[in-house]
């Protein structure tokens, strides 16, 4: 063995030693990166057009060349979209809608996650009598189209005096977030070893202590996922916003619709684009900031020891 000479570098498999060589430019890589690049362009092009258009004046837009960058750079459309464009009867821009959306989204997200996480915890660890029936009903709820339920909900909200009130809209968002969030949390808590729960019970912890001190901290990635799912869904919601709120409470999405679909006067494409980008900014930021956490939360089941 000792007097064996090292084999000369060769491409033969019999002499393989060390890591397998990888070529940067193989047909496979070219195809993969080519497709990826193509898809990126496909998705980024509309955004490019929107940003460019929002930075142009109307005369320049009317000349065509939607892909070209602005000759005369202007931020006027953005300012107008934010503070002075007409959103129906008032002309205060979509800044009011932005505030309304925040006022609707924050409590809806907090409330729905708070309730759903406790739901999931109770359903997975304190399997009470009829827990499975309850869960099945809840899941079936996720498959019933929203349109079917709108009219009954309008009546219910009217009866309890919350129709047209922001509290009513928050309630609707909370209820409609329940099936998917409960499912999410239930499955996450199911993956918690049962012995951990038993140990906590022997340690004298009750329903809430176990939830707050042990289970909720363990489910932190799932909370992040839930916050992302709920905040983007509620922020982007149009249907409930237009039905269950009044014009002074309209969320950003409804106001955006009013701007873009207004039939009077000249269509201000640059203002429309700016307003659209402004309303998309919040979900976009959430994705960019929490993207990593989001993936971690989705994959959490795989790494939990």
């Amino acid at each position, binding site marked *: 063995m000792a007097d064996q000479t090292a084999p000369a570098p060769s491409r033969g498999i019999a002499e393989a030693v060390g890591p397998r060589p990888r070529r940067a430019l193989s047909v496979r890589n070219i195809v993969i990166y080519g497709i990826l690049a193509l898809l990126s362009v496909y998705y980024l092009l509309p955004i490019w057009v929107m940003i460019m258009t929002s930075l142009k004046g109307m005369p320049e837009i009317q000349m065509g060349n939607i892909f070209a960058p602005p000759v005369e750079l202007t931020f006027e459309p953005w300012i107008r979209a934010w503070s002075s464009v007409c959103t129906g009867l008032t002309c205060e821009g979509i800044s009011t809608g932005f505030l309304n959306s925040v006022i609707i989204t924050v409590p809806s997200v907090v409330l729905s996650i708070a309730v759903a996480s406790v739901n999931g915890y109770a359903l997975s660890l304190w399997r009470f009598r009829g827990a499975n029936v309850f869960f099945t009903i809840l899941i079936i709820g996720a498959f019933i189209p929203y349109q079917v339920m709108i009219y009954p909900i309008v009546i219910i909200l009217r009866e309890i005096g919350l129709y047209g009130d922001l509290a009513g809209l928050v309630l609707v968002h909370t209820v409609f977030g329940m099936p998917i969030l409960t499912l999410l949390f239930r499955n996450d808590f199911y993956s918690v070893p049962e*012995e*951990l729960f*038993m*140990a*906590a*019970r*022997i*340690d*004298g912890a009750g329903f809430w202590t176990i939830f707050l001190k*042990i289970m909720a901290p363990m489910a932190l990635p799932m909370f992040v996922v839930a916050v992302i799912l709920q905040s983007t869904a509620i922020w982007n919601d149009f249907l409930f916003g237009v039905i269950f709120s009044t014009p002074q409470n309209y969320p950003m999405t409804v106001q955006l619709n009013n701007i873009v679909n207004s039939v009077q006067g000249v269509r201000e494409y640059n203002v429309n684009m700016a307003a659209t980008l402004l309303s998309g900014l919040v979900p976009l930021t959430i994705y960019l900031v929490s993207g990593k956490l989001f993936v971690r939360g989705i994959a959490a089941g795989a790494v939990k020891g």
Partner: protein
Amino acid sequence: MQPSVSIRNLKLDFGAIQVLKDLNLDIGKGEFLVLLGSSGCGKSTLLNCIAGLLEPTDGSIFINGDNVTWAEPSERGIGMVFQSYALYPQMTVKGNLSFGLKNARVPKDEIERRVARAADILQIGPLLGRKPAALSGGQRQRVAIGRALVRDVEVFLFDEPLSNLDAKLRAELRVELKRLHNNLGNTMIYVTHDQVEAMTLADRIAIMKGGLVMQLGSPAEIYGRPAKKYVADFIGSPSMNFLPGKLRAGPVVDVAGQSIPLDAYDFTRKGLEGDVWFGIRPEHVATGEAAAACPVSYELKAELVKPMGAETLVWSSIEGTPFRFRMDGHAQVAAGDILRVGFDPVRASLFDTVEELRV
């Protein structure tokens, strides 16, 4: 003396399946009782019932004379150690140890004192600030034991606490557990499927099968005088050889063409005649010259030889019935060799063929 834990007519059904069937058990103060059985025998279920984590269908459980059948797990005066350690992952070792005490609203200085004592006993002092993820398997199990220790309880329950550890660590912790028991003097109930663990740790072993206790006795009793064929077969590795025989007056048992006199055999039931199982452990079979000196001996052909280092196991058969025996590790044997084996019927165990109870 009042027993520490007392189980009366305990029954537990999961739907139509009876997991525990009318089980009775008394565990003395300071006793180390091992519940031993193959998986699905109900041993862990019984432990969970004692802990209060499962509600029995019928029957009652007493701990220190109090009926705790309906009491919450934390009110029963028990501490429990789980197979998967079940440490709270987001708490430090100290947090894990003090969690139960905080829930019980024990004063702060008392918590400090008890945590320090447990850490001292288990030598986990330097680990108090760490999270469970930063501990090795053995350290985690120590912390889990510590969590039971700080509760200052009478009864410790162990649910296969060493099964997740490697063989060497298991042997180490086994010794430590034994020492802990000697020092603390608590009642300990220990569930395992590992018979070596059971034999080395237990004061008494309860062999369970199908929700019933098959035999309750000291390790020596269980090994030497198994009450049932199942127990005899379960304890010992490789397990006991069972040869069909016929018991007749004398007392003599006819096994494989030989009449074996049973004058010295310690009968449990005298005067029985008819078909029996004649059981002899592989380690009680002598070979070579020692075999010739035995009251009974046979000529056998070695069919399979398994050298284990310290000893060699030989698989063979007597009139078509498998027969295993142990030889010294130095013995030169190969498959196909003809060997003379012998044994003393005093060390045998006889069981009737109907109920398979000890004769």
